C-alpha cells in the first residue's frame, strides 16, 4: 500500500523531539529563534538563530557625520539607550580630543545610572514574570516611567533618546528634571526594597532560579561574558572601575559579585547594582549642587567645531553661523585615528571601535555588543535543563535583540 505521509528517513526511530522556540514566541522577549532538541522535557541541545532585526548600522555609519550616528546607537540596547549615546559621545570626544567639564560628567553619570536602573529593573522583573510572578513587573513599571519622564525633561524623548551631543548636553537640565530626580531618589529605594522582598527569599522563585543556567568563571571569561552576567560568576570586572570614563573615579561604590553564575545570582547581582546606582546618583546629585555661579550653568564643553551654538547667536554672529552651517551639513572633518572606547552598558561592556581616515564620517565603526558575544553560551547554559528553565535563563541573560543584531 502506498503511504501518503512521507516522513524523513529515520524519523520514526528518533527518540528526541525538535522544538522551535521562537522567532516570535512571547516568552522570548524579542525576535529570537531557538531550535531545541528535547528528550522529554530535558534539553539535549539548543541552536540559536540570530539576525532577524539586523539593520546594518555599521555600514550606515560609514556615510554619516558623527552626530548622526547617535540615533543609531539608541537602537542597540533600547532598554538603556542613554548609556549607548554617552558611550558614543565619549568615543567621539576621545578621537577629537574634547575635554568635558566636571559638571557634564556628573550629569552624564546621573543619566547613565538611571538608565542602568531601568535596564536592570526590566530584566529582573521579567525574570519574575517568567517564573510566574507578574505583580513585580507591573509594580516597578511606574518607576521606569518616572525614569523615562526624567529623560523626557532632559532631551524630549523616552525610549530612543538621542540624548546629549559631542561635548555635553543639548541644553541644561531644567528644574523639573532635578525635581523628578529628587522624587526618584526619595521614592525608589522603598520600591526596590519591596521588589527585592517579593523575590529574594521567595521559595518558588528560589527553586525556579537556583542551580539553573549556571556557568563557571573560567568558562564565562572564555565565552567573553561581561557585565552582571560575568560578575554573577565571581569575577569583579567592571568597566566603570577598570577603565573609568566620565569621572567615575570620583565616586565611591562597590562592585557586587555572585558565586555560581546561575539565574538566581544574576538576579541578585542586578539587584545589588541597582542599590549601588542609587548611591552613585545621590553622590552625583550632591556634587552638582556644589557648583556655584557660572560653573553651575555649564552643560557642554567649549568645542565650537562640534557643539551647535545657541540659536540667537546663529542669527546675530558670523562665527556661530559658520559653525552651525558646518556642523549641520557635516562639513567638519574629523582627525584621522583609531579609537577603542568602552562603557559599562546595561548588560556588559559596550565597545566602540572607530577608525577615521580624516573624512566627514568614520572609515569603519564596529560595535562590541555584549549580548551578541555571550548569547553563544546559551547552548551550554541550558544543556540538560528543563524547557521552562531555558526560558528563565534566556530572560536572566538580559538579551536585547536590537543590540545583538545591530
Amino acid at each position: 500500500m502506498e503511504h501518503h505521509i512521507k516522513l524523513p528517513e529515520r524519523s520514526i526511530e528518533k527518540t528526541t523531539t525538535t522544538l522551535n522556540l521562537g522567532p516570535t514566541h512571547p516568552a522570548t522577549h524579542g525576535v529570537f529563534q531557538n531550535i531545541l532538541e528535547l528528550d522529554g522535557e530535558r534539553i539535549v541541545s539548543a541552536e540559536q538563530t540570530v539576525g532577524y532585526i539586523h539593520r546594518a548600522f555599521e555600514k550606515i555609519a560609514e556615510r554619516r557625520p558623527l552626530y548622526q550616528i547617535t540615533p543609531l546607537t539608541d537602537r542597540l540596547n533600547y532598554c538603556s539607550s542613554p548609556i549607548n549615546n554617552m558611550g558614543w559621545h565619549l568615543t567621539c570626544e576621545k578621537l577629537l580630543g574634547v575635554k568635558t567639564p566636571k559638571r557634564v560628567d556628573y550629569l552624564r553619570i546621573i543619566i547613565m545610572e538611571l538608565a542602568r536602573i531601568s535596564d536592570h529593573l526590566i530584566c529582573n522583573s521579567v525574570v519574575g514574570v517568567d517564573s510566574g510572578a507578574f505583580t513585580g513587573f507591573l509594580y516597578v513599571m511606574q518607576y521606569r516611567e518616572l525614569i523615562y519622564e526624567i529623560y523626557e525633561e532632559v532631551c524630549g524623548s523616552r525610549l530612543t533618546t538621542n540624548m546629549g551631543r559631542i561635548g555635553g548636553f543639548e541644553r541644561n537640565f531644567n528644574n523639573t528634571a532635578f525635581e523628578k530626580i529628587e522624587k526618584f531618589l526619595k521614592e525608589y529605594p522603598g520600591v526596590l526594597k519591596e521588589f527585592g522582598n517579593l523575590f529574594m527569599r521567595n521559595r518558588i522563585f528560589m527553586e525556579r532560579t537556583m542551580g539553573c543556567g549556571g556557568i563557571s568563571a573560567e568558562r564565562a571569561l572564555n565565552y567573553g561574558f561581561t557585565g552582571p552576567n560575568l560578575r554573577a560568576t565571581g569575577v569583579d570586572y567592571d568597566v566603570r572601575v577598570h577603565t573609568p570614563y566620565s569621572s567615575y573615579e570620583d565616586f565611591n561604590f562597590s562592585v557586587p559579585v555572585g558565586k555560581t553564575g546561575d539565574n538566581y545570582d544574576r538576579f541578585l547581582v542586578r539587584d545589588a547594582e541597582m542599590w549601588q546606582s542609587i548611591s552613585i546618583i545621590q553622590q552625583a546629585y550632591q556634587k552638582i549642587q556644589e557648583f556655584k555661579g557660572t560653573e553651575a550653568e555649564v552643560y557642554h564643553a567649549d568645542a565650537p567645531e562640534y557643539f551647535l551654538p545657541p540659536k540667537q547667536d546663529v542669527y546675530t554672529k558670523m562665527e556661530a553661523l559658520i559653525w552651525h552651517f558646518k556642523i549641520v551639513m557635516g562639513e567638519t572633518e574629523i582627525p584621522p585615528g583609531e579609537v577603542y572606547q568602552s562603557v559599562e552598558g546595561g548588560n556588559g561592556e559596550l565597545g566602540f571601535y572607530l577608525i577615521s581616515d580624516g573624512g566627514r564620517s568614520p572609515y569603519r565603526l564596529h560595535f562590541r555588543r555584549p549580548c551578541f558575544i555571550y548569547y553563544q553560551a546559551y547552548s551550554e547554559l541550558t544543556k540538560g535543563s528543563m524547557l521552562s528553565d531555558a526560558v528563565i535563563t534566556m530572560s536572566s541573560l538580559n538579551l536585547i535583540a536590537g543590540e545583538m543584531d545591530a
Partner: protein
Amino acid sequence: MVLFYIKAFSHFHIFIFSHFLSMLSNQTIKERLIQKFGDQVFNFEEPYGMLTFESDKDNNLKVMQFLFDDEELRFQFLTDLTAVHYPNKQGKELAVVYHLHNLVDNVRIRFKVFTAVEKPDVFTATKLFESANWMERETFDFYGVNFVGHPNLKRILNVDEMTYFPMRKEFPLEDQTRIDKDDAMFGR
C-alpha cells in the same frame, strides 16, 4: 548562592591598577613580543595609548597563544574581533583586528593581521577563545574572511542565500547628494 561584596572603592582600585600598569607597560609587552618573535611582529604603534601591532597572518595563532600562556602577559580575554577593508592596499586588503584584554593587570592591546582579498584565509581563534566563534562568523558574513578550522563557518546576521560580503568597500551606500532620482514623495 551568597552574594559577596568586593571592596572596590574606586579610588582604591585605581591605585592598584596604576601600580600594575607600571609593571606591565606597553614597552614591556613590546619587548617580550620582539624577544619571542623577532621581526615577525612589526608596526608597533600606540594610538590613544593602546598598543597596536601586526604580524603575518600565518603567525596569528602563535602570537595569541603566546600572549595567552605567558605568565607575565596573560592576555586571556578576547574583547573584540572584527575586520576592516582597505581596497587600496594591494595584497593586504583585509585586516582582521583582535582586541585583547589582560584583566589582571588591566591592559588592552590591539593585534592585526592582513590578508589578500583573493584568498582571505586566516586561522581561527575558536580553540583559544569560545567567544571567537560568533565573532568570526560575523566577520565572515560581512567581509568574507575564511577562518580556517572554524567548526561552523556560516552566515550569522545576513540571509544564508546572500552571495556577497556587504561590508566591503565596493558596496557603497547610496550617495545622499544624487539628483538622478525623481521621487517627489520622499522629498528628493
